[in-house]
């Protein structure tokens, strides 16, 4: 189930609108058809790169298996007016050229990076993506919303709100809005192996579609509980101001949905591990600085410091303090330590505050020395 009526229903490891290029003699010419380049794990468990036409029910025209680090997806610098990229196989010198069809070229870099990420380590990335944990989806949803204005009219706050509102009912019906038609003034003409830049006639105008269309359906789940709370207008209002308000509302709601199910907060024991402490405490001078904090009657020795830190009572103290920090009520304690009390609403923010404090002190000390 997709978030947007117009967006495709499948989800891929990476996908973006791109056209193919055709190599004719030593010229590279664009195939003007609207297409989509995407990567997925195939049934053979391998990483595939597909290209297909962006028509309904189209099947991939190109299907390439890419093994780990076998290929690279890079920008063709010679083409100065187009956004042309080449997929080059290291083993066979096979090359495939594509031109970006997304209206917004801001995402090109991220997309290309993602492609290369997938190629360099398919296994990790395929597994990570397939989990679709809520926090990643939540982030994506937020990103989508934040990018919303710069993107296609298809992706509108009304759409989003409508969808959320209709979670328990049938999908709102919205007319399929076609991509804006695009024109190619002149195809980008590049010589495939020419070292010197070739003049390029014009840049193809890309169609307008979101760079990363429909996030997987699962994020709708954490978002859904918010749906009843959203005061959604039943009929989408084309008034820009109202849609901005709705967008803000939605942002607020989603920002408040803590992706708690997906990501667990860290505790102090995750940071003060024996791994992190051992090198620190192997230094006798470091241990000596901690003598004042040893229990009364303890021997003032480096070994004692190590033993105390290894004790179950110390671990319990870490747990208690972590739990207390998570309740957000330790403001007074933080003040006592010279930290901003508002940093006491999670272990993470507490640690960040401690880090900042140390940095500040370093700076102050450095300034004093001048």
């Amino acid at each position: 189930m997709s978030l947007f009526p117009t967006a495709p229903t499948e989800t891929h490891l990476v996908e973006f609108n791109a056209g193919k290029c055709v190599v004719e003699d030593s010229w590279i010419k664009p195939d003007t058809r609207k297409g989509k380049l995407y990567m997925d794990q195939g049934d053979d468990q391998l990483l595939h790169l597909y290209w297909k036409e962006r028509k309904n029910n189209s099947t991939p025209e190109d299907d390439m298996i890419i093994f780990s680090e076998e290929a690279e997806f890079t920008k063709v610098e010679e083409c100065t007016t187009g956004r042309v990229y080449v997929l080059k196989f290291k083993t066979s010198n096979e090359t495939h050229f594509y031109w970006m069809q997304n209206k917004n070229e801001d995402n090109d870099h991220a997309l290309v990076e993602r492609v290369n990420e997938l190629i360099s380590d398919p296994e990790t990335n395929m597994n990570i993506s397939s989990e679709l944990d809520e926090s990643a989806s939540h982030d994506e949803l937020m990103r989508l919303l934040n990018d919303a204005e710069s993107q296609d009219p298809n992706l509108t706050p009304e759409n989003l709100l409508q969808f959320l509102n209709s979670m328990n009912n049938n999908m709102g019906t919205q007319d399929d809005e076609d991509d804006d038609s695009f024109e190619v003034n002149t195809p980008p003409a590049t010589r495939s192996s020419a070292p010197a830049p070739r003049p390029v006639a014009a840049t193809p105008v890309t169609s307008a579609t979101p760079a990363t269309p429909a996030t997987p359906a699962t994020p709708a789940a954490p978002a859904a509980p918010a749906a009843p709370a959203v005061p959604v207008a039943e009929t989408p209002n084309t008034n820009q101001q109202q849609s901005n308000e709705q967008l803000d509302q939605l942002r607020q709601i989603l920002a408040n949905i803590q992706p708690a199910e997906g990501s667990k907060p860290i505790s102090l024991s995750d940071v003060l591990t024996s791994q992190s402490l051992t090198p620190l405490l192997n230094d006798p001078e470091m241990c000596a600085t901690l003598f004042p904090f040893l229990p009364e009657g303890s021997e003032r020795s480096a070994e004692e410091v190590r033993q105390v830190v290894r004790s179950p009572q110390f671990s319990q103290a870490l747990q208690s303090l972590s739990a207390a920090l998570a309740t957000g009520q330790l403001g007074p304690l933080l003040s006592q330590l010279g930290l901003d009390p508002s940093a006491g609403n999670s272990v993470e923010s507490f640690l960040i505050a401690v880090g900042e404090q140390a940095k500040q002190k370093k700076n102050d000390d450095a300034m004093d020395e001048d």
Partner: protein
Amino acid sequence: MAEEMWCTIESDPGVFTELMAGMGCQGVQMEEIYSLDEATMEELKPIYGLIFLFKWQNKKNGQPTPEVDDNPNVFFANQVINNACATQAILQILLNRDDIEIGEELRNFKEFTADFPSDMKGLAISNSELVRTVHNSFARSDPFVNEIVDPNAGKDQDVYHFIAYTPIHGALYELDGLSRGPVNLGACDDNNWTNQANEAIQRRMQGYGDSELHFSLMALTKDKVESYQEQIEELDGLLLSLGEDAVNERNQLNNQRSSLQHKLHMEQEKRARWHRENVLRKHNFIPMIYNLLKKLAEKDQLVPLVTKAKEKKQ
């Protein structure tokens, strides 16, 4: 309201031993035991009481509710505070014996509450500043933290349930603060009442069926260090009184003395360990923790550690 003022404390013999001393008792200790067989019991004598503790999983005991014996000579208090359950069970034993030095404050308390009904007795315990402060001193670290969070609370909804067994005036009593009153398990002998207690405990365990019952047994005994020291002194006295020609006897006594010396040494080591654990339990670790974090931050290690920790959690 009173509930909040009592922290959870660890069910540990070292904690309980120091708890009793803190309330003014002398010459007693708690010992964790793994068997109620005769050999174990013999070794531990004199035993003043037994405590059976288990996780109360709100399962019904399959047995019929035993009858209550409202014997006015038995000190019985209803449990009012959940977190005080261990301390309460210990008091149930201490306040029912006349052969333990419980100290002036507890003596006064016993006198003061002697005629109270059991629920009032329970309330009196919860209001006792002495008992509460000593109890709470074993809860951890920082007062700020203790006020806010009890790391054990809510983590598992099971509660620990403590039941005390002790002979009172020739009868074995089961003292369960969650019951209406004390239960008389029958006449017993001061020397072998632990067998009867053993049977009663077995019956109880059977009543809970197959459900995983996490339980412990503890014995409230005479302080072993004192006990061994006294025995050694006795032997020394005997040895002195021996004639020069009583070689065999002398050897025998010397062997016994060595063995006792060894036990004394072990016990002293254990008490030192317990004491250290208690010191650590009572220690406020926040300054230490804060300074460790600061040091890591000064070495630019803190931020990467946080990042790594977050990644692991995903």
